[in-house]
């Protein structure tokens, strides 16, 4: 099963979404950042399982053209599977994002690649931590030597400006007027361990060599720790990007071993994930240990149970699609390409399920809007319907009279486990009662009263939400007035999809 996951195209989809979010964040408003081309760069690298050191080198030393131009909206919709033309290097878009704040790029590189919080040293020397302003300035000096050559005249609204990124042998003139960058522009580029980063082939190449050098333990440990945290809910060092002497790792020997093995494998990401997912810790259930077991297992205290963490927006959407066969429902309407639908759903619901850094905190609640979307929204409502091709239709079509087998099939599909005897009993009773409950008249749930303003609404240019792509899908897919039995089964699936067991990663 692990092998299948690693070989599936979902591998590249998942890590593209993950690193796109880490590196690009939510902000893509700079007029020349092509988010789609950046994702295409990531997708191509992860598809061929390029070594992590190679991905990072390509990212840090990228030169060339950012984009084919064209509509920003279309670029936003490219999840990385559409490749730009051959002479575009999507990797340059990360540097473009930071074209007016290279100091932030240095901070982001230290944080995401080395697990080091250097940014604080931008403003002050820390009393207890080792980084000084001088360290920061020397490191940041490696990020100011690029020039941007515009390839398009003017800036048509909604279009991506094409630019070419080139290396430069000195600080770029565009920074000269920025007073707060002055110390960085004056500093000579120095790595965090004092290594001089001036080199004949340019400071960016030297920086990439220093970061990805097998001797650089920050690099391998940061990645091993991040992957461990991704799969187990918490890293050896937590937060994952805050390695410092006053925040020591919980099991340093294990982290060390993973990092060393990762370097030895040639920075093979799939190898590292195979090791982590194959570990006994990962196989532990989400149930807490008994007192005796707790005493026995002091070593793995932190991972005594798999920590319960909320699924991210992509993961949750993918989980709902997989559990309900929403993709088959969409296909059966013949209306839209599934990728289009998936993208529009993400656009509409993505921000809703944005989870924050703090999502592992014990008092994490999520938001009311998230709860409403799961309770009443179209993704769950459509997914939980008996429509041609849906998972629920498959389950109801299973031969035999026993509802227990059908409950079992649905549990396996949605929760990846068999129901307990108690659960089967509870649901059997639920199904029977719901079918004998007084027939509800066919209702359209009452949409809140229409607003008084007559006439067509003006086009709303600032609406943060895209129109709901699933709206009315049931009608188009031939939705019919469901029988009491079908309604009861829809309620069952709805319940599983709303449950913490489904929504939380555990």
């Amino acid at each position: 099963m692990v092998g299948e996951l690693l070989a599936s195209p979902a591998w590249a989809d998942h890590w593209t979404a993950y690193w796109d979010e880490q590196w690009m964040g939510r902000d893509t408003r700079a007029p020349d950042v092509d988010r789609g081309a950046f994702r295409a760069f990531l997708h191509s690298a992860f598809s061929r399982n390029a070594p992590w050191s190679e991905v990072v080198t390509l990212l840090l030393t990228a030169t060339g053209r950012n984009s084919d131009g064209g509509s920003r909206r279309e670029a936003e919709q490219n999840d990385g599977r559409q490749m730009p033309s051959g002479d575009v290097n999507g990797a340059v878009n990360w540097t473009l994002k930071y074209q007016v704040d290279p100091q932030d790029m240095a901070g982001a590189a230290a944080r995401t690649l080395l697990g080091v919080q250097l940014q604080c040293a931008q403003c002050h020397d820390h009393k207890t931590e080792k980084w000084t302003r001088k360290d920061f300035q020397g490191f940041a000096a490696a990020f100011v030597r690029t020039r941007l050559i515009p390839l398009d005249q003017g800036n048509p609204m909604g279009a991506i400006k094409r630019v070419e990124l080139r290396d430069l042998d000195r600080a770029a003139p565009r920074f000269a007027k920025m007073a707060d960058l002055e110390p960085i522009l004056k500093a000579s580029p120095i790595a965090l361990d004092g290594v001089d980063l001036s080199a004949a082939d340019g400071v960016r190449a030297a920086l990439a060599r220093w970061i990805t050098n097998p001797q650089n333990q920050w690099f391998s440990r940061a990645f091993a720790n991040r992957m461990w945290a991704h799969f187990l809910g918490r890293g050896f060092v937590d937060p994952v990007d805050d390695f410092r002497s006053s925040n020591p790792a919980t099991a340093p020997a294990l982290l060390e071993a993973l990092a060393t093995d990762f370097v030895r494998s040639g920075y093979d990401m799939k190898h590292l994930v195979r090791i982590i997912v194959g570990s006994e810790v990962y196989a532990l259930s989400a149930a807490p240990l008994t007192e005796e077991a707790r005493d026995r297992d002091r070593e793995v205290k932190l991972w005594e149970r798999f920590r319960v963490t909320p699924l991210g927006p992509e993961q949750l959407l993918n989980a709902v699609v997989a559990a309900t066969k929403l993709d088959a429902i969409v296909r059966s309407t013949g209306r839209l390409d599934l990728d289009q639908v998936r993208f529009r759903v993400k656009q509409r619901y993505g921000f809703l399920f944005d989870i924050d850094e703090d999502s592992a905190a014990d008092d994490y609640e999520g938001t009311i809007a998230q709860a409403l979307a799961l309770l009443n929204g179209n993704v769950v409502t459509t997914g939980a319907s008996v429509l041609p091709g849906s998972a629920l239709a498959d389950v109801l079509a299973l031969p035999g009279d026993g509802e227990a087998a059908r409950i079992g099939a649905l549990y396996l599909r949605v929760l990846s486990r068999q129901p307990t005897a108690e659960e089967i009993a509870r649901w059997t009773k639920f199904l029977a009662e719901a079918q004998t409950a007084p027939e509800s008249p066919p209702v359209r749930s009452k949409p809140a009263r229409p607003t008084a303003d007559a006439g067509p609404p003006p086009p709303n240019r600032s609406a943060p939400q895209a129109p709901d792509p699933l709206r009315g899908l049931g009608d188009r897919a031939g939705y019919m007035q469901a029988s009491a039995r079908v309604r009861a089964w829809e309620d069952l699936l709805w319940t599983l999809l709303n449950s913490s067991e489904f929504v939380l990663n555990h």
Partner: protein
Amino acid sequence: MNQSLFGRRQLLRVGRSAVFGALVARWSSRGVVAAAEARAVKANACILLWLNGGPSHIDTFDPKPKRPSGGPFKAIKARAQGMTLSEHLPHLAERGERLAIVRNMSSKEGNHARAQYYVHTGYAPNPTVVHPSLGGWTCARLSDERAELPAFVSIGGPSFGAGFLGVQNGPFVLAKAGTPPADVAMPRGVDRARFERRQAALDAMEEQFAQLTGDAKVEGRRHVYSKAVRLMQAPKLDAFDLAGETETTRRAYGDTDFGRGCLVARRLVERGVKFVEVVLDGWDTHQNGFDRNKALMATLDPAFAALLDDLNARGLLKATLVGCMGEFGRTPRINAADGRDHWPQAWSAVLAGGGVRGGIVHGATDEDGANVVGPPTTVPDLLATMANQLGLDPEHTEATPAGRPISVTDDGTPIRALLL
């Protein structure tokens, strides 16, 4: 992964009461803090009219008639000494005695995303921490746990969240005023009885999972679900429905999404919502700036003025702080495309109500609107002033996940001259 619900480990029953106790303690400590601060409170709520894109100060609140930088618009006298406004803000000019115009705003952030973050949070962006917006602080520190409606609502835009204070303190987003919020209505085919059957079934599953995992996040989810269901059934949900307003009122705010947004904002504040942001987008006028500014002001002017009148008529203006601003100003130089470019060096912000002194112009720019004369008002100072009026102590700090104390603004000090 595990074919049995109970896995290989034996079930440990964690006292759920302990978990729940911790949650309750957290909420009630928040209540105590709010009560202590309440003594100093001058505003119960804040409405932020967010002019997205960076409005031209010279074409709106800081006119420079007859100067080369002034553009084609005339200036008109407002009802307050020394206050002039663009000729396209006649309704606001009439209400000059309610406005405090801060004309010496100045910052260094000339990039939209960075500046929007700065003006919403009082901090320049910094990759090590995500700062809470003023709305996020308000929600985290001043919301009433028993309220039917979310404490922080954003209309027409996503606003900025509560950063390290957690997503639960971020804005509840209304895509478009005049429509109900997304997904508050039960889905098609589901009536109250069926919804209750579903809830009961879900409750049984959640109970079982909470006992199994002992994880507080399950309680957290149940808590937020109960808030969501309460919102679905809340009588105060009528705040989003404008059918109850008279034709006269609706016409006063203007037949625009922004006008309707301001009207919904008043209805929300009336029903106890603490912080409402209403977004008017389109102020990034690099091209064809004067036609576009004229049209934008035709939307802003009646809506803002009607909001002030309406709040005042209902006795709410004294305790409702209204702010109106964007992320920066625009260049004194008019570019070849008849627009203006980004100009963070000098710009204007407007405050009204909520203990703010009306009828004043605070600070000034030079004759071309290029630079601030004398010491500027910083973004942290402006936000500290607003926070202060809401009863958020500018000195109070909360710890980030890394343990760093962060206050409401980056060293901002409330501007006494703006306050009653």
